[in-house]
């Protein structure tokens, strides 16, 4: 049986990759994907804890997160498309109409 700590380390790695992705990638779609990666890290955590503690709550939590991720992706892509139509770019660093 795989020890819980392995899952947690995997989750932490995914989480870190996600955070680095958000901070460094220029394309907003990829930033969005990085955020989804973090959410999946959370899911792994929850399911691992759920198994470790022998309680089902964590899995229920994970299901809600999956749904939420889908909803976020839907809304996010909608917003990104609207943005692209006006600005013809998807690069995060060209987004600076609003500042100071």
């Amino acid at each position, binding site marked *: 049986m795989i020890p819980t700590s392995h899952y*947690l380390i995997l989750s932490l790695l995914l*989480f870190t990759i*996600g955070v680095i992705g*958000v901070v460094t990638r220029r394309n*907003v779609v990829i*930033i*969005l994907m990085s*955020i989804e990666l*973090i*959410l999946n*890290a*959370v899911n792994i*955590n*929850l399911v*691992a*804890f759920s198994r*470790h*503690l022998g*309680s089902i*709550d*964590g899995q*229920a*939590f994970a299901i*809600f*997160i999956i749904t*939420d991720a889908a*909803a*976020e992706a839907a*809304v*996010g892509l*909608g*917003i*990104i498309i*609207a*943005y692209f139509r*006006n*600005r013809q770019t998807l690069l*995060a660093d060209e*987004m600076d*109409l*609003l*500042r100071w």
Partner: protein
Amino acid sequence: MTPALADAYSLAPVITACGFGILIIVGDAFLPRGGKSLLARIGVVGALASLAAVTLASRHTDDAYSGLIRTDAFSLFLESLIFVITVLVMLGSYDYLVREGLPLGEYHALLLFAASGMAVMASANELLTAFVGLEISSIASYVLAGYRRTASKSNESALKYFLLGSFATAFFLYGAAMVYGATGTTRLDVLREMFVAGRAPGPLMLLGCAMILVGLGFKAAVAPFQVWTPDVYEGAPTPVTALFASGPKAAAFALLVRILVTGFGAANATWFWAIWVSAVLTMFIGNLAALTQNNVKRMLAYSSIAHAGYLLVALAARSEIGIAALLYYLVVYALVTLGAFTIITHLGEPGERRLEIDAYAGLGTRQPFTAFCMTIFLLSLLGLPITAGFLGKFYIFDSALKAQLPGLAVMLAMNSVIGAYYYLRLVRVMYFTEPEQEWTPEPVTAGVGAVMFLTAVAALGFGLFPGPLMTFATISAQSFR
């Protein structure tokens, strides 16, 4: 009363709001193009009905849904505030939507959904429920921020809000998962029981608490997670900004209080300094940045950051009077800010052209009522006596002093001095400067006028007769005993 019905009672405001939201969505699908204004009316009725449903919820003040939801004076207080805000935002935005040619149906449905999410946040007694509420309100907010689909600024605002918002939510979730792993529960009252017996919270639990603070701090726009605020507030359609500055902030603070006091009460020595530092940073950043701002909308966005700092001071007091002061200030601040943003909406003109401070020159003679209301709002934000803002600051100040936090109290006072500069600047421009170009503001319509009048009355009324509101706030604060 069957258990299921009792549960439904305690969520009555949320159910009502969602029901009306769905009704609007379906109605929008079938109504002809010319008949959409009916939807706006349904929206207002829905928000009022949800407000009325708060009284239904008050009949069942207890845990509901096996402890996921908790209805108590605190949640009722915030639900009332949230739906009052919703009604006012709806009243203030009809003319704007017509002027900008934006669809009415989705807007009102989204407002109701957002409000129901905030209401869930106000009564959540468990981290998953809190998360669901947070996301319902957030996702609706993302869409609302980008509601002017053809305006680049609005797109950018929505995109920034969306990406950073879901980023912050992810931290919240990671924290919740850690807390779950550390304790095996996500229920706040169970957490509290668990640590009553003198068990010290372990590192995993504390790290979870820190991560949760990130998510909530983002929503509440406190330093260092306030970075998104000015951009998003500036770019979003002004009535939506009015909502952002009042509703979600109230809900976020509600959740912050509930989670920190109930769930992590045992760790208060730990989070206290985080809140302390954040309060100081938030106040100073907000006020200093507002000093040189020429865009009124953005200036008030910075100002809203500063006010979040004041609210944190009340939270740092960690006492019942602190929470009561926080609630009182929340009401006053939310209504006053709402009023101010409504005036900005009203004066914005098509395409939101009129946002610079110079555009307000001569308002005092051209539309005295509007200028008068704006002055009241600004003076209340500044905290001049007789206005409600003064008493709000007074209560917070008082709670900070009584909690032996003279440092925070002094910094609060310093910040209200800094605030005087930019609030009065706008007052001065309105009354004492002549505009470079002649202009006539659009006449005040019934909806906008009603919002201005009601919020101005609140700003003065709560200042002169704070008794009832303060009593309600004090009772609400006792929910955490």
